[in-house]
């Protein structure tokens, strides 16, 4: 089992780098695209509503694998037309096709999450901002968007993890991410333990990401939670006169 790791760890490391790269760029592009679309969906013109709803419904209602095949193989049917438009170099590369598909998919999910976040911003604060004469841009920048992202933070973290796991599908169109390297190693050695090493890699990436995300969340909501989590006084304690030492030290 360990000889397998010694032989294949450089390839698995390359795979991990490819996985992280693909996930990071898809999520980043989706982050940029989803915010304007969420704002449009929430408060834009009525003409924008149905196209965006259709887009979200399509990308959430079809399997990621089907979407990936549609972009990679499906658009390959239009190779002459795409070559004429000068776009074939993009659509023939599995990396760019996977990036496009994952970005569009993640945009749809992030759009819904941000829409929920926008809806949950306290109305009183928006009214206070309007009464001070804030312009729309200032309102969004100072009040609405900080609230939205703090509310949506856990759900966005979930979505990034789901994108990381969904990205394993890219191995089916021969992208050499962790899953791709693992499958190739298995087809060469027929040693099942390579899958357990891949599982370990995924679990490690997920755990580290969750830790970092929670640290950032604590930092962002420190104005609500306080610098140190308060320790509740013990109700069974017989010492009724002493104050709680930990809380007073924190303050």
């Amino acid at each position, binding site marked *: 089992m360990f000889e397998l790791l010694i032989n294949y760890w450089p390839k698995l490391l390359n795979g991990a780098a490819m996985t992280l790269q693909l996930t990071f760029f898809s999520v980043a592009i989706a982050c940029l695209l989803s915010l304007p679309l969420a704002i449009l969906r929430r408060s834009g013109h009525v003409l924008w509503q149905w196209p965006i709803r259709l887009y979200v*419904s*399509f990308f*959430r*209602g*079809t*399997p*990621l*694998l*089907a*979407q990936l*095949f*549609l972009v990679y*193989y*499906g*658009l*390959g*049917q*239009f190779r002459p037309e795409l070559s004429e438009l000068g776009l074939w170099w993009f659509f023939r590369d599995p990396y760019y096709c996977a990036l496009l598909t994952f970005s569009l998919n993640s945009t749809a999910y992030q759009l819904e999450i941000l829409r929920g976040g926008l809806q949950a911003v306290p109305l009183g604060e928006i009214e206070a901002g309007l009464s001070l004469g804030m312009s729309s841009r200032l309102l969004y920048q100072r009040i609405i968007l900080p609230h939205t992202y703090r509310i949506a933070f856990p759900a966005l973290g979930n979505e990034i993890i789901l994108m*990381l*796991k*969904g*990205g*394993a*599908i890219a*191995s*089916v169109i021969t992208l050499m991410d962790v*899953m791709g390297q*693992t*499958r190739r190693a*298995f087809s060469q050695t027929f040693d*099942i333990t390579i*899958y*357990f090493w*891949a*599982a370990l890699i*995924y*679990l490690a990436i*997920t*755990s580290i990401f969750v830790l970092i995300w929670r640290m950032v969340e604590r930092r962002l909501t420190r104005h609500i939670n306080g610098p140190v989590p308060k320790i509740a006084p013990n109700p069974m304690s017989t010492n009724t006169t002493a104050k709680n030492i930990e809380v007073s030290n924190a303050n």
Partner: protein
Amino acid sequence: MEWFQYLSFGDSGWGDELLAGLGVTLSLAVVTLPLGLFLGFVVAAASVSGRAVLRTSALIFTTVIRGLPELLTLFIIYHGAGLLINSTVKWLNPDAGFVELSPFVAGVIALGLVFAGYAAEVLRGAWQSLDKGQCEAAQAVGMTRFDTFRLIELPQMLRLALPGLGNLWINLLKDTALVSVIALNDLMRMTNIAVGATKKPFVFFVTVCLVYWFICIVCEWCIAKMERRANRGVRISSS
């Protein structure tokens, strides 16, 4: 239009093959659902039990299952369960031949485990939101633990868990597309075969996307209806 020609039923069209694939997809999902739900209940019960061993085992199970890609889980089950079964059979009977694990069974086990891992969290959350006073009242009246669960906790749990379980059902339908990678003749794989034969990938992949989309919309509508029925008579709280 050539689209209709490709999708027709009969010798030259692929419509009947796609329909057979759709049948396999739906039967895979329908078989996986009860298994996944039952295992989800078991794991949820373990995660709230008094014994630390059960709680830790349930936590490890849900963490591992929710942390791995479904494709990886599928491969581990497909290749690993096959090896496990074969080594067990060889240990019991050295002369036995090679036992083949059908990709359908591997798909059911893998997707059932994934469903159970997520469903356990949904059910646990629903159970912990219940009003404990009703269970205490049942205990005071003398109902057995099982009767309390069956008559009081379970109906209320299902109402609370229904949105989450509905989402998981839709995800299950979409994850069945993954079993095409281990050569089960579901809708996705039949589409791939059709594409290989006709060299018209766009036609077939658009069709299969529309089919999945339509099924998901129908399921979402049914689940919304079930939620409305489950929430009938629930007084809106004054919060």
